[in-house]
């Protein structure tokens, strides 16, 4: 991605310095994380999660996938301490689908047993574990699988009531996440799943175009949106897990949309690095 970033006039030397800042600051907060947890001070843990997340995106942009994975894992750890289902997406970007899956299963289980008393601030976020669950392979027809399927259907049904709520950095409606997760869970056709990925690809493309027009902020990446945006990459990476089982690769689809478009180049390159 680094060469594309240079072409796009992003100051990669500045990004490298910013990466060291966010990596160091994340570590600084993380070194006190037990005290923060004991005192229930959630903000510094959220700062650490944000900082590692940012460092990971910078590392991807600078072609350092190894460091990106390490930073995503640390970010996931912080979100998990905050009891944020979003941790599942960070674990998946850290190439740790097993932990993502265990965490997702626990999040959905806790929701179901809470019988409507689940903390409201974490309610919308359950769509992330749903997406992880949808790509998790199970042995067929075991009691555990049947229970998992019931849980999946139940949570989808609950979240449908919030289908217009914007979610994540990009503000993509929850319905887009829900329909994608349900389609993958049903093992629909590749074309169906590709179609349901379009809202994510389109949102990313619009974001890149808009962000580039603000040249002062873009060159310095002085904005919450990132060219290696974890909210988009995590969704695509999870979908790619499913495509790979069908001996297909999602990057082919992304490139096919338009090989010349900057957003397609950035995204397909980022996805290849995330997935290794």
């Amino acid at each position: 991605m680094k060469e594309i970033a240079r072409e796009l006039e992003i100051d990669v030397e500045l990004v490298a310095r910013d990466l060291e800042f966010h990596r160091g600051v994340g570590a600084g907060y993380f070194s006190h994380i037990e005290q923060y947890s004991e005192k229930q001070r959630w903000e510094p843990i959220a700062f650490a999660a944000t900082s590692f997340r940012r460092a990971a995106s910078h590392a991807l942009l600078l072609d350092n996938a190894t460091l990106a994975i390490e930073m995503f894992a640390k970010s996931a750890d912080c979100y998990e301490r905050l009891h944020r289902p979003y941790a599942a997406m960070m674990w998946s970007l850290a190439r740790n689908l097993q932990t993502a899956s265990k965490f997702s299963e626990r999040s959905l289980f806790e929701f179901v047993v809470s019988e409507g008393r689940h903390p409201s601030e974490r309610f919308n976020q359950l769509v992330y574990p749903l997406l992880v669950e949808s790509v998790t392979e199970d042995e067929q027809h075991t009691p555990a699988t049947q229970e998992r399927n019931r849980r999946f259907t139940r949570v989808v049904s609950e979240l449908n009531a919030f289908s217009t709520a914007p979610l994540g950095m990009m503000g993509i409606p929850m319905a887009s996440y829900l329909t994608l997760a349900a389609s993958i869970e049903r093992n629909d056709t590749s074309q169906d799943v590709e179609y349901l990925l379009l809202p994510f690809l389109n949102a990313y493309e619009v974001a890149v175009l808009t962000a580039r027009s603000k040249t002062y902020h873009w060159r310095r990446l002085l904005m919450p949106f990132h060219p290696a945006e974890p909210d988009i990459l995590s969704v695509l990476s999870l979908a790619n897990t499913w495509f790979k089982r069908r001996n297909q690769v999602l990057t082919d689809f992304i490139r096919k949309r338009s090989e010349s478009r900057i957003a397609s180049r950035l995204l397909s390159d980022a996805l290849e690095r995330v997935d290794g």
Partner: protein
Amino acid sequence: MIIQEVLKGISGIEEDDVQDIFASGIVCNWWRKVNPLPSLEVPLRLTERNLHWHQNRYDHPDPLEGNEVFSKHTPFISTTAGSVERDRFNEINVLYPAWWEALKFATNFFTSDGWIFYCSAWILGRKAVGHRAFSEEVRELHVYSDFSLYQLEGEVTAKIQIPTAQIQKAEEWTLSNVQAALASGSLPTASQTITNERFIDPSTYSNVRAVLL
């Protein structure tokens, strides 16, 4: 009206310059360029068009200024208060404290020493671009819904001048100390703090909304 604490990072200045700022306030780039300030022009400059240029076309040639870059003539002053707190975090999963952005500007993106000024901004909770006394809370998405994804996180935009009575203190951040702290996995801290004797504590008038640190 809300009194909001904000931070402003400035690079390339020495302690004497900090004392000058304590005497005269933090002024916008336009004032620094045309000093003395042509006060008759102030209302003509405090426009939504210029606020948008300050946010979105900061380093673009401005046809209204003979195609000099807009930043040289901006009547606005960017500051940061950090993310709007818990509600926003619930939506987007990221939370930025104000000192990160302020430190980036203070150190010119980790290339020099610099200073972070602790100030108070007065905001109305709605757009008031023409009113010099009030800052614009462009981080507040209910007021400025178009600035969400692409703007400096937590921005509050002051106008023309942050008066000295609204500047509480300045912290010096040396690059070597910041780098040493980051390399050792600890949070960097300021090398020294200077308080401003001309500061008037706004909490005597109203509640103050703290900066997110």
